[in-house]
């Protein structure tokens, strides 16, 4: 009971700084200049192609430039358009590569809400390729990732006076996290293909271009990712999200030790014990829902969980460091179990789990 009340208090403390404070006056996107990050639900109806109706959520930047804007990739590449009124962005039809064929996309209007907080859009597409022809549609529903409308003609959403909590950095963290997820996806892809090559499961002339492409992506995006997180940490050195993401980046780079290594960032992240405990709970709830588990897996009624529990406690040596001995995360089972997940999960898997947690907070 007390724990439940505590969780509510913690959640409230987390959410209060990001409670919506959108414009009570009509907002006009056609006069704004700057990049704004949105959480976009993309529903692609492939039923006419004998496919499913797919729904995914992405963090998507839109670059506004006073009268025109470029929408980030929502599945068919980024697209530029012009405003036909204060809050209607018109995007012309175009044809995009859609291997092994191509898709002709209809023109469409992006309708922004007058309080700045949301937008909707829908376009149709006609696919033609060697594997057949068919038509479908894509619907977009966007919600601004920040807690308020951007300040007029501001290039960023950073307030001039930083609140103590650091939670105001929502849009910066969302943008950096999106880049990190791309980077970790490329790293994972490169590791898997390299492993397949070493095992003779893939031809060298097939593997080499994939590895080269992933390496190019990593080399291009990692300096940007590090810059984004260092900017956040300069303002808020113990920020949970920035430190945990930097930890995953360092883990994927194979840099484990020191304050600039995995363990250093992980310790700083887990020093936010309340946020860490709440994040662990949210990730557990998400896993239970994702795999339709009837209950939380428990060693008392699962031989696998019993064995896992014993192995987790007996195999604490990770890259030469006993993770029980790192300075934080051992004071409660929640922070300790989050530490296990951060440490043993692949960077991409952990980043994806954090995306889901972050979205939950952003949507509340």
């Amino acid at each position, binding site marked *: 009971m007390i724990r439940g009340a505590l969780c509510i208090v913690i959640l409230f403390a987390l959410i209060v700084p990001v409670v919506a404070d959108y414009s009570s006056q009509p907002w006009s996107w056609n006069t704004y200049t700057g990049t704004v990050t949105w959480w976009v639900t993309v529903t692609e109806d492939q039923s006419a192609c004998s496919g499913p109706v797919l729904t995914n959520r992405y963090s998507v930047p839109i670059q506004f430039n006073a009268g025109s804007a470029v929408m980030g990739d929502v599945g068919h590449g980024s697209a530029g358009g012009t405003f036909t009124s204060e809050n209607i962005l018109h995007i012309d039809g175009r044809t995009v590569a859609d291997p092994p064929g191509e898709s002709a996309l209809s023109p469409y209007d992006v309708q922004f809400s007058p309080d700045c907080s949301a937008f909707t859009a829908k376009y149709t597409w006609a696919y033609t390729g060697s594997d057949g022809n068919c038509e479908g549609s894509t619907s977009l529903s966007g919600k601004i990732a920040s807690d308020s409308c951007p300040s007029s003609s501001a290039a960023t959403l950073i307030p001039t006076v930083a609140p103590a909590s650091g939670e105001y950095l929502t849009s910066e963290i969302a943008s950096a996290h999106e880049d990190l997820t791309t980077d970790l996806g490329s790293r994972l892809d490169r590791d898997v293909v390299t492993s397949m090559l070493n095992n003779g499961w893939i031809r060298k002339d097939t593997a080499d271009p994939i590895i080269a492409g992933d390496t190019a992506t990593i080399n291009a995006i990692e300096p940007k990712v590090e810059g984004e997180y260092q900017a956040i940490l300069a303002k808020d050195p113990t920020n949970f999200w920035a430190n945990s993401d930097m930890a995953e980046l360092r883990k994927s780079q194979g840099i484990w030790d020191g304050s600039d290594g995995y363990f250093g960032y992980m310790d700083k992240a887990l020093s936010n014990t309340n946020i860490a405990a709440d994040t662990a709970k949210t990730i557990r709830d998400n896993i239970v829902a994702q795999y339709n588990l009837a209950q939380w*897996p428990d060693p008392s009624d699962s031989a696998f969980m019993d064995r896992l529990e014993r192995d987790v406690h007996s195999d604490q040596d990770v890259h030469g460091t006993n993770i029980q001995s790192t300075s934080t995360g051992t004071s409660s089972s929640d922070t300790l179990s989050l530490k296990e997940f951060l440490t043993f999960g692949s960077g991409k898997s952990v980043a994806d789990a954090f995306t889901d947690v972050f979205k939950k907070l952003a949507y509340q």
Partner: protein
Amino acid sequence: MFLSGIVLLLLAAGCSSNTGASPASGNPGPEQAAFIAAANDCKDMNLTDNEDIGTFYLTSSQGCVFTKTLVHLNDSEMQGMKTMLEGTNMTCSYTQGNFDSRWVTSLVGGMEYCNGDLKDAIAKLTIFTT
């Protein structure tokens, strides 16, 4: 012709195959120990490892790549757990002489050097441990 094909396959694999029941985590059983020794030398080898929690299929290759597949989880486990884990695998690359025996004897030991959906599923379940 068929027999010679099998012989060729075995020669090409250069492997031996074992099926063994193993003890719980910790010290390796005899079949596990034989597998670990072969894998440490980067030899082609496979082992169907029947454990008290389920059945794993282990392989090692001349390219110094170890794979671990969770073939079957005990029937007493929740269906969601079976969906999450059965058929998943992870791949671990290493150099000759540096095979981590914990990949065989433990669910998590040495997993930081591996990739695959088995690793990620196990990592997700560690968040339920205390």
